[in-house]
């Protein structure tokens, strides 16, 4: 119909019947912009392009509508990881990566930002961070060597703890050891991401050539299971490889410094031998001596050769040393050099004789301790002594002693009253270091010794007994003249050579002049 009408109108109206078009060009959005970006392998896992990160070339970057998957345009990253998508129709898109162009082990870690809006003549920049696949420690243990992975977990030790750039990491399903970790400030308890290559060291899977990133600090460490020394030495059949474990109580059999300068303690709780290796200079080595009881927490690390594991405590705090608790009677039977602990009553104060000797009494007898570390203890205190069995003047003593007061002011038993002759022989040695009392002894002679002590010879008629009034007692000596009859109490100390004992009163109360 219109074909007929228009010529008719033209004829009738003498016009060109206006323009014949019914519609103008429709308004459409024809604007375009550019999307560019860089793709990189985020080696340290922080999602940010750092100098240490490497470019990711050959990756296809794809632009899709926000609601769909149709590819609007795509481009491939060049050798420095850069892609350019020119002439992108203006709009809002999602940036993604064609997974077919990713290697086996790379994964997209972060796209900043994935949802972009390209405007007219606009250039929108995006960074795409790739990372190794994030796997669990249990998965790492099942993987073949050479795969690039990352694990996230709690660091069981710091980067420098063992002096060998290894970090053990625990996640919910297990533990793994990272070796050759690039220097990083990681402390035990940090939440870390470890990226590296799967491998084997000493027969156990590890992540090697690793880098670590601290995600958070101060997280709770996993509970350390308690193993026997024998179980720890085999890591529970490998189950506890790289795990944090503890052994409750073993005895240090020996300690040697190995070639790396570390202290290698052989410990046995009776089930079997375990090597506990203390990193050089990180420990108070003097404490960890043979015979000591050791409770240790540490990371189980396979020993060279892979058949056994050593326990590597991380610091002194991982170790608790304790000693054999013995009676005085037992101590007197022990060989020289054993460290023991004795609990009893102090027969004299630490400063009584001015020579750091303390005498201790338990139900089985008394023992002399020398070289007692300074301690505020007095006669009658209940004390614990830790020291080394030694021998002096033919009698067993405890030497190099650390004393601890357990309770103060206990009542000492009344001393046994003996004759001077018996005292001089310490009842055949049985009363060595014990407190005894003589009654009615007459002073035979007196002498001031070069060290200031005052020496008496006393005899109650049974024989002579040497009595030393220590100058540190601060006694008034004028009454102690030959011929004076006295009652005296004191500790029996063997004389040099050990043939006889001398009596050392401890204070003025130990003397009584008739």
């Amino acid at each position, binding site marked *: 119909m219109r074909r007929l009408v228009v010529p008719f109108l033209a004829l009738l109206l003498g016009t060109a*019947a206006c323009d014949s078009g019914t*519609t103008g060009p429709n308004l459409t959005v024809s604007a375009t912009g550019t999307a560019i970006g860089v793709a990189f392998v985020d080696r340290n896992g922080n999602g940010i392009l750092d100098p240490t990160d490497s470019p990711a070339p050959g990756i296809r970057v794809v632009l899709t509508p926000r609601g769909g998957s149709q590819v609007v345009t795509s481009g491939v990253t060049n050798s420095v990881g850069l892609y350019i998508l020119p002439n992108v129709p203006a709009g809002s898109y999602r940036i993604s990566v064609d997974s077919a162009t990713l290697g086996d082990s790379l994964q997209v870690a972060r796209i900043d930002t994935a949802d972009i809006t390209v405007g007219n003549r606009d250039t929108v920049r995006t960074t795409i961070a790739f990372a190794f696949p994030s796997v669990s420690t249990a998965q790492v243990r099942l993987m073949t060597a050479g795969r690039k992975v990352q694990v996230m977990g709690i660091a069981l030790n710091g980067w420098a703890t063992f002096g060998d750039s290894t970090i053990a990491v625990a996640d919910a399903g297990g533990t793994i050891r990272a070796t050759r970790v690039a220097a990083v400030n990681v402390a035990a308890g940090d939440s870390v991401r470890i990226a590296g290559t799967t491998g084997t060291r000493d027969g156990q899977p590890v992540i090697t050539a690793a880098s670590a990133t601290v995600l958070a600090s101060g997280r709770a460490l996993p509970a350390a299971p308690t193993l026997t020394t024998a179980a720890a030495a085999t890591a529970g059949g490998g189950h506890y490889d790289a795990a944090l474990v503890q052994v409750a109580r073993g005895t240090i059999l020996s300690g040697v410094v190995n070639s790396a300068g570390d202290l290698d303690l052989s410990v046995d709780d009776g089930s079997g031998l375990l090597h506990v290796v203390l990193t050089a200079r990180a420990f108070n080595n003097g404490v960890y001596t043979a015979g000591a009881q050791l409770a240790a927490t540490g990371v189980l690390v396979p020993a060279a050769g892979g058949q056994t594991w050593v326990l590597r405590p991380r610091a002194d705090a991982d170790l608790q040393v304790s000693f054999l608790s013995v009676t005085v009677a037992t101590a007197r039977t022990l060989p020289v050099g054993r460290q023991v602990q004795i609990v009893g009553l102090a027969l004299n104060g630490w400063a009584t004789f001015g020579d750091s000797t303390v005498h201790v009494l338990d139900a089985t007898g008394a023992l002399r301790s020398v070289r007692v570390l300074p301690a505020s203890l007095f006669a009658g205190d209940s004390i614990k002594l830790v020291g080394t069995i030694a021998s002096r003047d033919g009698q067993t003593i405890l030497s190099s002693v650390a004393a601890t007061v357990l309770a103060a002011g206990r009542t000492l038993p009344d001393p046994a009253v003996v004759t001077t002759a018996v005292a001089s022989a310490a009842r055949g040695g049985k009363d060595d270091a014990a407190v005894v009392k003589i009654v009615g002894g007459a002073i035979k002679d007196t002498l001031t010794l070069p060290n200031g002590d005052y020496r008496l010879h006393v005899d109650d008629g049974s024989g002579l007994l040497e009595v030393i009034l220590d100058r540190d007692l601060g006694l008034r000596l004028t009454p102690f003249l030959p011929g004076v009859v006295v009652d005296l109490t004191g500790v029996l100390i063997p004389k040099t050579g050990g043939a006889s004992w001398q009596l050392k009163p401890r204070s003025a109360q130990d003397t009584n002049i008739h």
Partner: protein
Amino acid sequence: MNVKRATKAFAVSVSACLVLLFAGRAGAQTLTSGAVEGVVRDSAGGAMVGVNVTLMGVSTGATRTTVTAQDGSYRFMLVGPGDYQLILERIGYRPVHVEGVAVNEGQRLDVGATLARERTPMGVADVQRLPGAGHERPGLSEWIPSSAFSRVPGDRPDLTQVARVSSMLGPDLAAEGLPPSYMGLALDGLRYEVARNPAYPGVGLAASLPLTAVSFADYIGAPVDAEWAGSAGGILAAHTPSGSRSPAVRAFGRWSVPSLVSSPNFDTHGLSLNDGDGGVLFTGPVMRDSAFLAIGVEARHTERALAGLWPQGMGSDLLQVAKDSFGTDLASYTRPRVARSEAVSAFTRFDWQVSADNSVDARAVFTRIPHADDGSTPTVSAGLGPTYLGNDFVASAGLRSVLGGATANELRIGFDGSTRDFGTTDAAMPLPLTLLASPELGFGEGAASQGHFGQNTFRVRETLLHDVGGQHLRFGLEGSSTSYDQAYQFGAAGTFLFGSVADFAARRGVFVQPSSGPNTQFSIGRYAAFAEDSWNPAPGIELLFGARFQREKLPSGLITRDAGWLALTGISNDALPRTRVRTSPRASLTWDVENQHEWVLRAVASSDDDPWDPAILGELATQNGTIHVRRGVGTLSGWPALPSASEAPNQGAVLSVLDPSFRPPRTERVSGGLTRALGRGAAFDISATYRRTDFLPGRTDLNLIANPLGSDQNGRPLFGALTQVGALLTAVPGSSRRFAAYDAVWALQSNASSDYWGATAGIHGVDVGPLQLMASYTHSSAHDNWPSAWTLPSGAWAPGLPVGAQGPADYDVPDRFVLGAELHGPLGLRLAGLYRYRSGLPFTPMFPAGVDANADGSVGNDPAFVDAGVTGMSDLLSHFPCLSSQQGQFVTRNSCRAPGVHSLDARASLGLFRLGGSQLQATFDGVNLLQSSTGFVDAALLQLNPAGSITGGRVPYVANPHFGASLAPQLSGRVFRVGLTLNW
């Protein structure tokens, strides 16, 4: 109204009479005045020169004289409307008096006469009646006296009633397959605009003119007169009555006892309708024989019964759930409603014949509509409420001067102002607008449905007429300035959509809410110059050529720039052309065969541009990126409270952008017709029109993703991620958007076109015994690719089908038939009836409200796919040929059609008393007697099976068992009323 003219009009216009006329003559009249001309011959047929011709107003007594020219012709230009008689005298010849010369605005009378050479006593004259076809107006016109549309009762007693007696107009004044907003309105030759809600193009369009202020109306389909600015859908011109020589008062009152209402379609028990109107019209002289006044007031109150908003038998589940789960009583939605409207209006007109050659006039009409409720349903527009208040004022004044015999001048100024304030119907039920997809029910309105629209226009027009050498020339200048005021918040109260009653109970659905936007005020200046020439190349043949040059000046700085959109797309939303110049040529040919006024052939061609639509400028100014839409899909836990920001997050800004090539629609039209006068005022007319309108506005979503993301099982492209929420289907918010920061971004484009052809045949003024008849039939076809006729600029729910899908127009009505009859019996008994038929409107089988099958973020643009395998489809296929013929494909646009609409209104009146000039009549009215289809049906073919789920792109569709069912809310009850009418 002039009593005598009114009486005659009643006599001439039989019952609902309709006069179809075609004319192509112009040059001596304007749109507000008429002309009388003719040729005087002697008995031998020779032209008589020097005959004195006197034109005398019957009611005014004023006279004008002229003398016939060499060819025997005479002409009175710019004759004010009224009844005249013509006296022709020459010495030696018997004088002739011609009576019944009725002049109307914009019309020209051809009054020829023959003088006999006969000696007669002085003062004796031949008295002639003017023969049949008298009224002529350039262009194709349907002339309708007010009596035609007031003699049979109707439910809307205003100018809209003209549509009832025309087979060319729809009930809402839609014409030629175009929406009613494309109809131009004029009063006494000057255009006026009624403020309107762009969402409802037809509401209140012609409500402002009271019937007392209308003496007749014209539907001018093809305006050829250069004084007319074009409208794609034609012009409805109303004309006021003038004053009278002797004082007269006419009062009328009509009151009905509470009417009886019945309907087979809904329960009308307890409905009581009150109806009445009344008015007084005074006409009389202000100065004897020269100045006249008409003044009138009128008030009316009308009520109309409508079916409940929910179809009978539906919604009981919903009632129960609302009551049990939410403590809300929705029973009022099941009950029938009463649409109620009130209006008070005043009218005045003053005419003053200052001298024989100069006259002035002034007219004014004021109407206040204190309450109007069209009873409309909740709509997916979530727009403005269905009630409104209105104020309209139209005034004009003119000065007409005849400057010598060959030149005349008219200056006319006018003002029109209009406001519409929209609101909700029921403030006591402040429920948010809530829609269900299956069954398709809705309730609530939302608290923020208010809107204000206003416009004020000053107009001035100067027209100069000049006759030279047989050429009738007309030149003119015209200017107007219109200020518009728009304050509206489409959908800002938020809209809930639920798939089913169960979904509603579970509060799972879809929520949409645009934020409030700015209001806007702006002005448009319009200027025009026009020129026209007509002449007679041969006796009985007249040619006319005219052109109109128009310029529109659009506001600057109206739109705030959205810098974000500009940066994203390079497209600026604030680009608006400043001015636009357009040329509208017109031409017509009239052939009065043998000059006998028996066979008259006419042809008219024109090209016209519509003015800029203020709704488009308003949309651009308000949807400037500051309105954000939030959408929620899934759990809406707070209903009726609006969902939280997390349930319905912001989806971005809505924006409207004007296409740089946008221009107002252009209409090219040719029409032709033939009139055969049958004598005694009866005539047979046949006419045909072809119209083509280009550059109709459409909208495209610029923020729709460039390419579909996939397709469903039928191959329907999906523009977003489709998600099913119970029985709803929608796009995951944002998934269909090209730019994330924006919701819909509408490009307003003039990319649609409409074609119409129609043929009308009619008879009028035919007497068959005591029965007087008129009938008119129009067959037409309107096709377009323009689904936007009813779509909204809200961003919430739009647009229609994509432009480009050709099909029958939304307003395509192939057949319209009107039959009017009136029977006068004894004892003042009068029986009148008006039967109308029109085809149902076409529709596209689609989905229920809220289903977005293609996930493009818009609903209502998804044609259904006819799949015989869908549950329930086989039943529908056997009932609907439009479906069975489209099996295995997407339905084409408007490929189905609702059933035709029959209606019958009747009135019987009986004179009771006559006291002097007063007549009391008993009146029995029957309105809407035939309860036929409404012409609107449920167009949702496919629904979602809530038990199913989208798997592998396959959407679980089931057929809607109610497809094609008549939409009951549109049903109006049958009304019987008894009343008294007093005409005094």
